[in-house]
């Protein structure tokens, strides 16, 4: 294709189109980030004026903080479970849902509906469902001779219960993204491959999956960012407990900044988290570039 691009005008048009969003994101996103970066070098409770600068003291304190280490471990466990379960599960479900059989609309609706439940609504729902003594889940487990299980009330199970709940809540969203992406898979390619005698698995592996690459990359990056910032569920359900079993990084820093008044230290934690997510995202996008097929 010999489309000649006038480079100069592309710069102008590109910037003109990107500007409104970039401007808003800068003012309400980037500026606050830089602003609170300053906090991480201060000793501040967000109340007292003129907080003193303490250099790198907040960052140095991180290295010796066992609760911080614990929170990082919990965040990593959560992320390592949540991302593959939700994205992988959604891929499988989307493949199953992308066909014409009786009742498919009902199935799709069932998968999508949890998406509209707010975090608070979901948390309250599962609190009732997973109640150790009165919950429906333990009633069912008892019927098959298991349990009772402590769920959010057990040191060993609370984090996994949150994984289960959030996967339930996010699965529908991921399925929507996959179904949307499946619409973009050219039918001709599949028909051509099928005529060539490719089996179902090889069709999926060699044709469909690569075409879902951009969607998968998007979901993996997005889910990872979200998983590492887990907060609302912990705040509403367990407050980090029992016995700090669900202390995750963002809950810890919120607790420090708003309940305990150590906001400078909390900001330092946030920047360590930020760098970790940034590095992870760059790696994911870089790997994505190598393996993901774009049509352009």
């Amino acid at each position, binding site marked *: 294709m010999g489309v000649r691009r006038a480079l100069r005008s592309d710069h102008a048009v590109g910037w003109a189109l990107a500007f409104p969003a970039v401007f808003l994101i800068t003012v309400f996103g980037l500026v606050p980030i830089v602003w609170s970066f300053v906090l991480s070098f201060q000793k501040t409770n967000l109340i007292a004026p003129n907080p003193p600068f303490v250099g790198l003291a907040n960052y140095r304190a991180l290295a010796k903080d066992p609760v911080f280490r614990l929170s990082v471990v919990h965040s990593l466990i959560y992320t390592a479970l949540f991302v593959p379960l939700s994205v992988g599960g959604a891929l499988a479900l989307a493949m199953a849902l992308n066909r014409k059989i009786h009742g498919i609309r009902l199935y799709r609706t069932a998968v999508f509906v949890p998406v509209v439940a707010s975090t608070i609504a979901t948390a309250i729902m599962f609190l009732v469902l997973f109640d150790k003594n009165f919950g429906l889940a333990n009633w069912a487990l008892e019927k098959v001779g298991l349990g009772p299980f402590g769920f959010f009330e057990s040191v060993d199970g609370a984090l996994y219960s949150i994984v289960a709940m959030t996967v339930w809540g996010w699965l529908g969203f991921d399925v929507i993204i996959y179904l949307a992406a499946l619409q973009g898979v050219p039918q001709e390619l599949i028909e051509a491959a099928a005529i060539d005698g490719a089996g179902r698995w090889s069709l999926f592996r060699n044709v469909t999956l690569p075409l879902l690459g951009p969607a998968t990359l998007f979901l993996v990056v997005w889910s990872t960012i979200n998983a590492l910032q887990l907060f609302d569920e912990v705040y509403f359900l367990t407050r980090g407990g*029992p016995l700090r079993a669900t202390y995750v990084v963002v809950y810890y820093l919120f607790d420090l900044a708003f309940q305990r008044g150590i906001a400078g230290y909390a900001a330092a934690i946030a920047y360590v988290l930020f760098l970790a997510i940034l590095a992870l995202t760059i790696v994911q996008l870089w790997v994505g570039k190598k393996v993901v097929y774009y049509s352009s």
Partner: protein
Amino acid sequence: MRRSLFVLTVVVAMVGAACTGGGNQGATPTGPVELVMWMGYTPPPPVSQSLEYISLKKLVGEFTKTHPDIRITVRYTNNDNSLIKLKPALQGNKQPDITYQYGTNIAQLAGTPKVVDLTDRINSDASFDWNDFWPGERTAATAGGKVLGVPALVDNLAVVYNKDLFAHAGLPEPTAEWTWDDLVNAAIKLTDPAKKQWGLAFPADGSETTVWEYEAMLWEAGGDILNADNTKALFNSPAGVTALTPLQRMAQANALLLDFNPDAGKSENLFNSGNIGMIITGPWDLAAFPKANYGVQIMPSFDDPTNHQTIAGPDNWVIFDNGPTRVNAAWEFVKWFTAPEQVVRNSMATGDLPTRASVEKLPAFQGFDEKYPGVGTFVSNLQNVVKARPTITAYPDVSAALGQAVVKVLLGKADPKTALDQAAEEANGILAVPT
């Protein structure tokens, strides 16, 4: 795509309209002084338990009628969220004039000059009679030697028990002379897993809700949280172990309903439905037990049979600085609102304990016991409020460490001595950091 341009126009117009509605309402040189007040211990009507809001609005209305130069806007702000909301407001100079604050927030608030130091106002006004407030209240309103708040609410912990369950188990009802051994034995007898029945409900989230119940026990056992100058943890003393042991015994006997989310009201609901024998709680909870045939008894004692100490959670009205005119007006209101004549009317209207000792002797207070059954025990229990939690900025961290120790024992992950020693080590580390 014209439609989206239209939408954009509408958006811009709406945003514009929304933006013009704002602006800081302050004192105008000629008109009355405008004050903003945040309160939030119960939501406004028509929620059933909004007696406080109704009473407060009524008194505010009365005040502004006699003080036409002052106008007060009352805004409901959930107390649990008050500090979260206040921090940005203070940073942005958008602070309200008067707020309701938990006693445990005082030390953090002490860091800002925007909190009005009331010491001189209180000392220079003999008619205010500061010493009429209970000692525990005065301590909780003071940080760093400055009085930063006026007591807004006082409560304390006692044991609320289900009379029917005691009768069914053939147990005598608790007396004012009872001991922790009595309580533990009763709790074990009241427990019946088949009936989903537990002896005692206990908060197990490790938050201040867990900690303050334990702190009352610690004081009953003769122990203390920190040393006199708040530099070292004392809770891992033998008294601390004595205080934690009853909880360990009941946990081992599965006699405790451990409530990991105490703010959600699970314990209260289960007590009300007759699944729980005893609950350690305050007067605010009695309204949540309309179906339970309950009694109230003061806290049990340990070795010293006279020591039935309890803990109070006094909350405060805190005034923020929005210029001298507004500060003076705010003080004028708070002074009036916390005077005995208003305190007694507020107590009679809401069932809240009187914040001033003199109120109990007022004729207007007669009939309180009949109107609010069970609350009388909490009123007399104010005598058992001897100590208060330390008002230092590090207290939330000390509390967090102590909370973990209690939960460890409740879950059988450690014995009392080990758990308390670990927590003390953590607390001492925190206290060693200069502030």
